[in-house]
């Protein structure tokens, strides 16, 4: 540009520069927000229909609707809780353990971004995205008490569980100033990209406590309790796989290269785990089953969740493969050995896979993928063992221990309250008749009409 022209335009140059900056920000915000709204919808799709179909197919025919209802009703119930106080207790304030009531009734949650969490998207987008996580987490637990818990007890349980277990854990790991939040000055910096501790360990361990507290289903394991429709489960698992891209890649909170990296790691983890479970089954049992393949893919998705935004593709394959073998072992051998009736293996898949993934995140996390942790000079800090920082594995173990402890103690307490208030189990007659008829007054399959 000729010098004269530059001089001529200088009076309004700063105004034009400001306009340019604003429009650049608006363009980035539009891109990020578009992706995050899609990601939010994908995560909701994981609960309904994904998890509802996956679990619904695994139970007996007489309980298919009741099981699907346990997932679906949480889409409504947790949304209410989240609006009133849940979001605020998870993401308000900056204390180490739990949020405050700053965002109660979604006060102060509007179109302007919240720079503490996601500076390029509306605060409401962040809020609704996190809501989808709060919905699916208690829905995962329902796999442990399927086919025998009262609907009223399940509702009360979920309401208390969301406040007592989920909100504190989410705040500790992801909330500003949280005890375990590596990116916000946590005392014990723990890496959990999309919810290995917050979602899968809490739900999986709570599931185990529920299975132990409620006891086995009538007749288990002598009476056959085959999955009534593996086709439903198959469709559900495929929807979970796709939805998980929103879960993990969306946790980048932007349409960034980090989102791509998490997307790739997620897919690789699921693929390797499907193969891992199928191989374990083929070797151990002589036949590769469809249920094994889909269970394996879910186990891999669980295990890669905490690692997805920190690891490169080949470590992701390794984490998936390990999860496939490990969760097979947990579901097939450990469950049989101890005799607990974790009906749909919520603990075997989510508790075990989540813990394995959280620990392996400490091994494979690298600043080459995620440079979010910076020193004073702005240089990316090393993350995991592969970066030469072995201590991160210990941090991860402490994070897991806190998640296990909170989930176990919190769930036990909540179960005792629910037991005293409404009673946990349906009557023997109701259990034999099936929950669809006895609790909901309807049947899943009516062939004569």
């Amino acid at each position, binding site marked *: 540009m000729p010098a004269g022209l530059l001089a001529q335009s200088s009076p309004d140059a700063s105004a034009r520069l400001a306009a340019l900056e604003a429009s650049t920000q608006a363009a980035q915000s539009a891109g990020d927000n578009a992706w995050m709204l899609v990601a939010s919808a994908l995560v909701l799709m994981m609960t309904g229909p994904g998890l509802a179909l996956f679990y619904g197919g695994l139970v007996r025919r007489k309980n298919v609707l009741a099981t699907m209802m346990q997932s679906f009703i949480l889409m409504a119930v947790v949304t209410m809780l989240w609006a009133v106080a849940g979001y605020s207790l998870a993401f308000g304030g900056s204390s180490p353990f739990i949020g405050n009531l700053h965002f109660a009734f979604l006060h102060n949650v509007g179109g302007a971004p919240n720079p503490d969490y996601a500076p390029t998207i509306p605060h409401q987008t962040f809020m609704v995205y996190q809501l989808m996580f709060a919905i699916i987490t208690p829905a995962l637990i329902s796999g442990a008490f399927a086919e025998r818990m009262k609907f009223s007890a399940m509702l009360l349980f979920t309401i208390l569980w969301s406040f007592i277990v989920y909100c504190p854990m989410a705040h500790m790991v992801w909330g500003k100033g949280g005890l375990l939040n590596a990116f916000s000055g946590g005392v014990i910096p723990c890496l959990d990209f999309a919810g290995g501790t917050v979602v899968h360990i809490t739900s999986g361990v709570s599931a185990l406590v529920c299975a132990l507290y409620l006891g086995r289903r009538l007749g288990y*394991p002598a009476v*056959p*309790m*085959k*999955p009534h429709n593996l086709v439903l489960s198959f469709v559900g698992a495929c929807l979970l796989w796709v939805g998980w891209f929103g879960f993990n890649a969306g946790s980048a909170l932007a349409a960034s290269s980090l989102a791509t990296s998490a997307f790739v790691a997620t897919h690789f983890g699921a693929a390797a785990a499907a193969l891992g479970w199928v191989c374990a089954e083929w070797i151990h*049992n002589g*036949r590769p*089953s469809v*249920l*094994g393949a889909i*269970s394996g893919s879910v186990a891999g998705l669980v295990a890669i969740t905490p690692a997805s935004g920190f690891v490169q593709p080949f470590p992701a394959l390794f984490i998936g493969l390990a999860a496939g073998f490990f969760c097979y072992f947990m*579901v*097939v*051998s450990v*469950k*049989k050995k101890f005799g607990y009736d974790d009906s749909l*293996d919520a603990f075997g898949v989510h508790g075990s896979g989540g813990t394995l993934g959280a620990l392996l995140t400490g091994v494979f996390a690298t600043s080459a993928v995620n440079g979010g942790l910076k020193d004073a000079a702005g240089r990316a800090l090393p993350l995991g063992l592969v970066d030469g920082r072995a201590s991160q594995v210990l941090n991860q173990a402490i994070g897991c221990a806190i998640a296990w402890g909170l989930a176990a103690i919190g769930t036990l307490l909540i179960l005792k309250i629910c037991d005293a208030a409404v009673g946990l189990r349906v009557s023997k007659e109701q259990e034999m008749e099936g929950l669809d008829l006895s609790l909901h007054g309807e049947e899943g399959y009516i062939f004569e009409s």
Partner: protein
Amino acid sequence: MKKIEAIIQPFKLDEVKEALKAIGIDGMTITDVRGHGRQKGHKEVYRGQEYNVDLLPKVKVELVVPDNRCQEVLHTLAASARTGKIGDGKIFVYEVGEAVRIRNDDRGESAL
């Protein structure tokens, strides 16, 4: 008149139907049933949980034929339903006292 009740392998149903049609037998009633004779069941495994399934799916074919065609039908049925392996099924034959065509009250063999 004889009533022929054949319990056969489900995958043999089409072959049986075609064979009966070829000898001019059109009417029959088909039911999905479960059961077992000497055939042992099979094992199914879901996430390591083993189940022995001894009641296996079969198809029951029922038809009523004139006395003079009974042997021919039995022969055709057995030949078309046979694989030679255990689990092929069984055929039972009963005497029939009367037959009525509901549409026009035809009786006996002319009702078939």
